[in-house]
């Protein structure tokens, strides 16, 4: 088990280097010059442009820029500075990540609790009224685009009922984040509910379930331990990959509720060709993905005793 984890951790290194290099090259190959764009419509003389490029190290060849960048990042945890405003990328990320984590955690909790809850109800009552209602409800959620849901929630709760402020304030409390978290987590909630429901309905008919019931185990134990543990494998797989998506892909939700999180920084960095910021962000997201996928693989062994890692 220990060796397995160690091997997986070592595998992260080439993945990490490969993704950062790819992103770096992609940003560099985008049309548009970040230094030229700093001066907008009115432009600047060649001397100023050259001085600015030199100051930012953009006059060096791409491979050299990448090497310096990786060196600083690995040795000093220094992600460089932003081209446009000269702020350290570490500060930019440090500003954006806490709120994104807060939001992602809340959204994750919502989809976990309500998704699995609805899924269990549906799975145990497969084919009956409750199950059908849940299926219709989740179908409805899946078919509504995120920004529509966002605007509906704002319209109803902020403008008509006045229960919440339409936008999240600059120093948000957890309570303010509930509405955006619902918008962010609802789509995944529907998938989680459907996955759980199908998986449970299937496993209800499995041999080991019949054995467990025949042994005379109490119903709570049959469902809570025997059925749930085995039915959770596909759900956990989905949830694991969803953490990364919640963090990096919240751009629509963020802009609807005026949250200054990671999604907005990614969009802005792309449009401003901020290579350093983008690579820094993606690096962190890649690490999040790698770590969660490792956790999921390890969780498989916990959930299903038949799976072993030598």
């Amino acid at each position, binding site marked *: *088990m220990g060796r397995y*984890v160690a091997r997986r951790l070592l595998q992260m290194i080439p993945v990490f280097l490969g993704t950062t290099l790819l992103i770096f090259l992609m940003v560099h190959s985008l*049309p*548009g*010059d*970040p230094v*030229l*764009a*700093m*001066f*907008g*419509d*009115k*432009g*600047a*003389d*060649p*001397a*100023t*442009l*050259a*001085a*600015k490029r030199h*100051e930012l190290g953009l006059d060096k060849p791409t491979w050299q820029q990448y090497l310096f960048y990786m060196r600083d990042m690995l040795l000093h945890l220094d992600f460089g500075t932003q081209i*446009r*405003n*000269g*702020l350290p990328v570490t*500060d930019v990320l440090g*500003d*954006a990540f*806490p709120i994104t*984590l*807060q939001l992602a955690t809340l959204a994750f909790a919502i989809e976990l609790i309500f998704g699995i809850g609805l899924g269990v109800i549906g799975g145990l009552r497969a084919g009956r009224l409750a199950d059908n209602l849940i299926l219709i409800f989740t179908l409805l959620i899946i078919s509504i685009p995120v920004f529509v849901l966002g605007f509906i929630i*704002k319209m109803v709760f*902020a*403008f008509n009922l006045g229960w919440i*402020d*339409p*936008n999240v*304030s*600059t*120093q*948000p409390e957890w309570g303010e984040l509930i509405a955006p978290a619902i918008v962010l987590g609802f789509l995944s909630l529907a998938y989680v509910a459907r996955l759980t429901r199908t998986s449970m309905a299937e496993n209800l008919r499995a041999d080991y379930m019949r054995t467990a019931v025949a042994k005379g185990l109490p119903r709570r134990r049959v469902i809570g331990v025997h059925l749930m543990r085995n039915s959770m494998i596909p759900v956990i797989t989905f949830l694991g990959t969803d953490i990364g998506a919640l963090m990096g892909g919240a751009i629509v939700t963020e*802009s*609807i*509720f*005026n949250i*200054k999180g990671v999604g*907005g920084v990614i969009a802005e960095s792309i*449009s*401003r060709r901020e290579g350093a910021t983008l690579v820094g962000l993606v690096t962190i997201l890649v690490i999040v993905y790698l*770590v969660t996928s490792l*956790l999921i693989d*390890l*969780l498989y*062994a*916990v959930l299903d*005793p038949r799976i*072993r890692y030598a």
Partner: protein
Amino acid sequence: MRGAKSAKWVTGAIIVALAATACGGGKSDGGSDAKGTVDPNGIFTTDLGEPEKLLYTGDTMESNGAGVMKAIYSNLVAYKADGSLEMVNAESLTTTDSKTWTVKLKPGWTFHDGTPVTSKSYVDAWNWNAHIDNAMGLSSWFSDIVGYDKVHPEAEGAKATAKTLAGLKVVDDNSFTIELTKAVPYFGHKLAYTPFAPLAASFYANPKAAAEKPVGNGPYKFKSWDHKKQIEIVRFDGYKGPNKAKNGGVIFKNYTTLETAYEDLKSGNLDVIRQIGPKDLPVYHQDLGNRAVDADHAAIQSIAVAFYADQWKKPKPVDVRVIQGLSMAIDRATITKTVLQGTREPATGWVPKGILGYQENAAGDVTKFDPAKAKELIKAGGGVPGNKIFIQFNADGGHKEWVDAVCNSITQATSVACVGDSKTDFQADLTARKSKQVKSLYRSAWSLDYPVNSNFIKDLFHTSAAGNQGDFSVKELDAKIEAADSAATLDQSVKQYQAVEKELVKYMPSIPLWYYKVNAGYSEKVSGVTYGQDGDPILDTVEVKK
């Protein structure tokens, strides 16, 4: 026990993962909201995007940064709504030949840190901003001053051969002289722009830190900057200028979209808004009543001609009547009313309102919609080569709708095919323009740097102007521009430029479309909200109710 052992590993990994993350919360409270009289210390909020760069006086060239800088710094002069000058930090600004200017400062002014504002504060700041090593985006503003080519050689890679501008001379603590390389009658107007602000002595020790928390001499003191969230400024009680703040301070709140800002305005979380988003334009008058604002904004949108493009150059240079015809095929009145929802006003010339030297109907008939005449002109000019034009624009600026409308209008009126040439974003658009890859026409917007008509003519249409990206070049026009530039007085210069504007019709370097307008509003908590010709709310006159 296998499961239990695995679980241990999982928990271990989870702890590692959690250790890397930490979340924070907490929130400060606003003031109380009792209605009625004016609170001289009341603080109000306004929306503002994150300034693109740090707040250097010499590098703040976009509206977000400028919005803050105007409040933090007071220059020698400022301009009024009609474009004329008023003295602020200067007691007098005199010249006899528009070439040597003498500045006398009002004595007794101080920076926010208590140090006095002297002529040295100005001269040192300008020298710093002009120097090539500091790579300030606005350094070319000092190019009129003697010695600029020494501190800021233009060629790539060249080194400066002097540290200071030879044309700046400190006479005593409260006066200095500026010597220009040639007469610039409107130089006084340029002095109102941010790069000409004074800098406190503390700036030079650590410019980057100072740009993060600028120390100025203006009506407001910089208090804090929570990046991408908000900037807070408070009234400077020791301010001696004419525009002392009538409120206690301003909080600039950052919004990702205009729509979210408007929602906060409606729900009372925002007091002054700078611009209403397209979604809310049809309703904001109804929502805000007499708190809705429509004002002129001195900026112009036009379609510029890429004269280097094969279409206009080969086999022979395009006849100006073709461009005139295209201009007359655009139904500006309808497009501004429908597609642009009244946020623009049809242009009748190249210089917008609120600018010194604005003249009504400068372009004559060329900006009037007349399909028959348009067809006739294009035919007389030999037709559009290829019978097809492209209008290049950036897809991220909300331009697609009106470009389509302009194209439809042209095609309907003249049966010349017209296609919008969309570039993914502003950067890609700009690169295509700089590398001369524009196929035929491109969108070109210009907002004032200083409110004199030369800014809208010389800086766009002179052969060597940075804003002239379409290779427009007419010798006689250059000569007239240079003559207007060296006129003895500001009045004469403005008059000569007015004549040049009238002549642009003969060359059509660009097709003027419309002038910008400010569509904005404010909350019930504030009064006295007005907007300058640069489209920004004027902060110091805002009064906050108790």
